[in-house]
């Protein structure tokens, strides 16, 4: 099917993805030795058994943050953030800033806390009784966990798309304009316009424009996920959180979503969780690698994939473990 985007990609994502992938296969042997990195990361202490073991034992270390990512204007800033599920700590002292207008990917083996971090940004973790947090997250400078923050208002500024497509059991149209409806918008014109532009933005307009009043549940999985993206961008969020948006989809649908994310770049700030290296390399500008609830390395996608500073990052991105 031909894509009909309202937005034109800034560059060919495919080309970049291929280039990265091929670069990754011609692996260079010249890596910064682990010990050297560690020494740089943590003042002079040696860690027998490697970084992962060190993390597993709960010893403190400094994540490697590439200088390039620090310069951009941040939309979300995570600052020394800890999170506990009951007595189990799921996030340890995470600090990272998500640059505005760019796509930032969170990668890491499953269970490392990517989703938890993502859900902390729009306070979806509030729904879990046992969650306790420490540290700060800021959205465009406003504290998220500050006293007196209205969670509902906060969530209206953030869009989120989940792992499994979750269209509401209503028509396609109503799904897209859901956020406007709950804000009490009744004006037909505003709603129609928001619906069309969001569906175009999500690359779904041509496929569904003739059946907007049909149930959203009749769509295919990939279409449903794009509908969810349309629903999220209809609210014109400051940041879009995507939690493994393609993990439940087939390769073709995945491709479409990836193209879409690429198109969103520049218009929206996107924080995407994935454990698919190819996907991270194809769609993101920056990538953060997490392990066991800690941020390990964070930098521009190209350098993280092609010249990671840590051996562990390299092992992970080349699929030697994870």
């Amino acid at each position, binding site marked *: 099917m031909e894509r009909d985007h309202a937005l034109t990609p800034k560059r060919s994502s495919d080309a970049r993805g291929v280039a990265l992938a091929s670069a990754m296969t011609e692996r260079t042997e010249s890596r910064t030795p682990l010990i050297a990195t560690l020494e740089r990361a943590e003042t002079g202490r040696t860690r027998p058994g490697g970084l992962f073991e060190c993390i597993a034992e709960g010893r403190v270390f400094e994540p490697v943050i590439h200088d390039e990512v620090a310069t951009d204007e941040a939309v979300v800033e995570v600052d020394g953030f800890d999170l506990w599920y009951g007595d189990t700590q799921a996030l340890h002292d995470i600090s990272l800033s998500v640059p505005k207008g760019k796509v930032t990917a969170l990668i890491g083996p499953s269970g490392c806390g990517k989703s938890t971090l993502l859900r902390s940004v729009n306070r979806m973790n509030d729904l879990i009784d046992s969650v306790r947090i420490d540290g700060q997250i800021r959205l465009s400078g406003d504290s998220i966990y500050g*006293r007196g923050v209205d969670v*509902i208002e906060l969530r*209206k500024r953030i869009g989120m798309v*989940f792992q*499994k497509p979750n269209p509401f059991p209503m028509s396609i149209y109503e799904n897209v304009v859901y956020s406007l409806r*709950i804000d*009490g918008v009744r004006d037909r014109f505003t709603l129609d316009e928001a619906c069309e532009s969001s569906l175009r933005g999500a690359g779904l307009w041509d496929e569904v424009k003739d059946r907007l009043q049909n149930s959203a549940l009749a769509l295919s999985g990939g279409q449903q996920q794009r509908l969810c993206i349309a629903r999220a961008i209809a*609210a014109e969020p400051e940041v879009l959180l995507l939690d493994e948006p393609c993990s439940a989809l087939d390769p073709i649908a995945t491709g479409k979503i990836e193209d879409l994310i690429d198109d969103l770049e520049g218009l929206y700030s996107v924080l995407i969780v994935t454990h698919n290296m190819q996907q991270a390399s194809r769609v993101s500008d920056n990538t953060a690698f997490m392990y066991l609830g800690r941020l390990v390395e964070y930098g521009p996608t190209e350098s993280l994939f092609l010249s990671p500073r840590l051996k562990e990052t390299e092992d992970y991105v080349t699929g030697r473990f994870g």
Partner: protein
Amino acid sequence: MSPETTPRARRNRKTRRAAILGERFASAAITAGGIGTILAVCLIFFFLAWVVHPIFLSPTVQAGDELSGAAVAEVDRAPWSMGVDEDRLLAWTLQHDGALELVDLATGLRLSVQRPFGDESPTAASFGIGTGERAAFGFADGSVRVARIEFLADFLKDDEVSEDVIGLEVGASAVHEGGVVGRTPTGQLRLTTLSVEVLERYELGTDAPVVDIDHAESPAGFFLTTLQEDGKFVVARVRERRNLMTGKTTRSLVQTVLRESADPLLEAPREILMDGLGQSVYAVWKDGRLEHWDMRVFDAPVLREELSLLEEGELARVRFVTGKKTLAVADDRGNLWTWFPARVGGEDSDPTLRLARRFEPGDSAVVALQPSPRSRTLAVSYASGLTRLFQTTLGDKLVELECEEVLTTLVIPPKEDALLGRSSQRLWTWEIEKRYPEATLTALFRPIPYEGFAEPEHFWASSSASDDFEPQLGLMPLVFGTIKATVYSMIFGAPLAILAAIYTSEFLSKRLRASVKSTVELMASLPSVVLGFIAALVLAPLVQDILPAFLSAFLTVPFAILTGAYLWQMLPDHLAIRWAGWQRFLAIFLTLPLGVGAAVVVGPLFESLLFAGEVEGWLDGRIGSAFGGTFFLLVPAAALVTVLLMGSVLGPRMRERSATWTRAQVARFESLKFVGGTLVLIAVAAVLAFLLQAAGFDPRGGVLDTYVQRNALIVGFAMGFAIVPIIYTLAEDALSEVPSQLREGSLAAGATTWQTAVRIVIPFAMSGIFSALMIGLGRAVGETMIVLMAAGNTAIMDWNVFNGFRTLSANVAVELPEAVVGSAHYRTLFVAALVLFFMTFALNTLAEMVRRHFRGRMHAL
């Protein structure tokens, strides 16, 4: 199994066999269980249907037996009357000349002839309809004599009788000592004899011959009315008092003269009749003219009305049917009607005669009319020899016979198992199986012009102490009662249960949810008899005592909760967020007693403002104007209107403006809006109530009316207790089953919990919520103990919340133990059970269909 198989493989195979066995066993057990259940339900249905089916069978007649010869002496005039005992062994005939003959019906032999009045022959006679009632006779000298002619039964021992009597088989009979001995099915010897007692003698009017007489035995006394040849028309009342010391009975007679003498220009009436209570006296002329004398005030009779009973033709016969209230009127063209007195002009009017039924016309003049002693069955014979049995309540023709002779006298024996008719020469007997003519589908489900009713009505009154009572077997009041119980219970229970389910599933933390849920489920373990008991003996009197406060609570409690919510919004942000836990919960709980307290305070105020100072009197319609109650009823509707108005008018305007406001400002504005809205609401309700009052609307007589202690409100409350846990549990389950990713998706989009609940969760859980409601409804429909104890059990059709009702289930529970097995009443109760069965069945089927519809909408796409 091959020997090479490894032990492991063998073990696997063995396990699998056990598993297969288990599987087979389980599936067989489940299949058997399922089929068993279906079978059991079907069996219950068939059992009910089996008990019910005879009411649909029509009566049967067997060809006539004729008895002739010596038994029936040829006489030129038809006898005064005839009687048959309940085993149809003997028949007496009082001939026109005063001779009383006794005939053995088995052989046709005349056993005896006696003359109870000596040489005199009565010139007029009136006989009771039931067995054992007295008869009254008028004589040529103007005197009146009362007599009792009845059959007596006595059980004999074998040594008291002769050989041939001892040898009697069951069912056979033999003549013995002036009576007849028969062997009963239990093997006893039963002697039936005729007893004739001539009792008192009265002189009522002049000494002119009595031309017609009627009498009535009522609790108010023994009444007589006579018409004499000189036109004197009197009514007499005899009061009998028995002295307990001496055992002597003293009689006091008073009389009222209706007519002193005949009008020379007018013909004398053909018949005079007096109803069973001695309250109405009728005189009927040959041309069908009727005078209705109202004797309710014995000393001051009133000529209530004069009317014509016939359309054309001449009066042939007029008689009372059983109960002596309804007149059966027949003309010489074969037409037959029934008339009875009813308060046609309303509750307070005087009873006047109204035409009740017109029966299928016969082919010739009516010769004889004879009511059955036991039921509303009327035997009619025509000049052509045609004879029919009619059911007078319903107007149905039961049986039709052709006889070659004209039957001048008819008898329906006490057991109603035959019809006897006498021609000038013969005595005919037809065996009849009457079955259940009073319980037809029409009788059960259509309005019927019951005796004394101004209009045809649905009515249930199945039994009474007296034999001559007209059974009223209309099931609609019971169906109505069932629906009323269900509706009011659901009005109270359903919103509560559903809202509670939404609250616990959407707003409470998991831990609290579990404990709340199990607490509510504990409510379900209260036996309904306990609930009914508390409702009837504690709640009902209490509510009656504090009615104003109780009614006010319906307004003050929601108001208190809303006020609490608005006040909570006014809390500073940091407090509101910090106190979002148990503190908020506590605050919600505290609003309840506040609302109740407010009700106690404003109750008397409401009472004096809206209900003229006394709610019960107001409800009764005695005092106050319609305004107060209308206002009260309109408050919920006005609230809805106000909310919608505010939402559509104020909402869009304020949205833009309030965008920049702080939380506190918004909260303050909202509270102002609430206060303003309340005022608007009161104004709207008041204006509407005023307009409605001006238009003549009065809620009294509709959903509000006279207060009865045990009423639908009380039942609604008590039944709420029974249905809330069921609806709550099922609805909560349905809501919890909504996939959490939908909830999260909505919340992540910035929806509030309430918006998520209303827009996503509830629509998704609709099929489950609906079936929860339906199961609650099913429970309410079938619920017996609570309604039995708290509903008052009066079978009236009236939506008044403050009145009781009688449900199908309570009716079956109350009456089945007392009903005579196999009687029409008994079978009708089974029809009631069947109707209940169908109602719940239809409800469940409907519920399943709607549930599938919702579910299909949610999932199938």
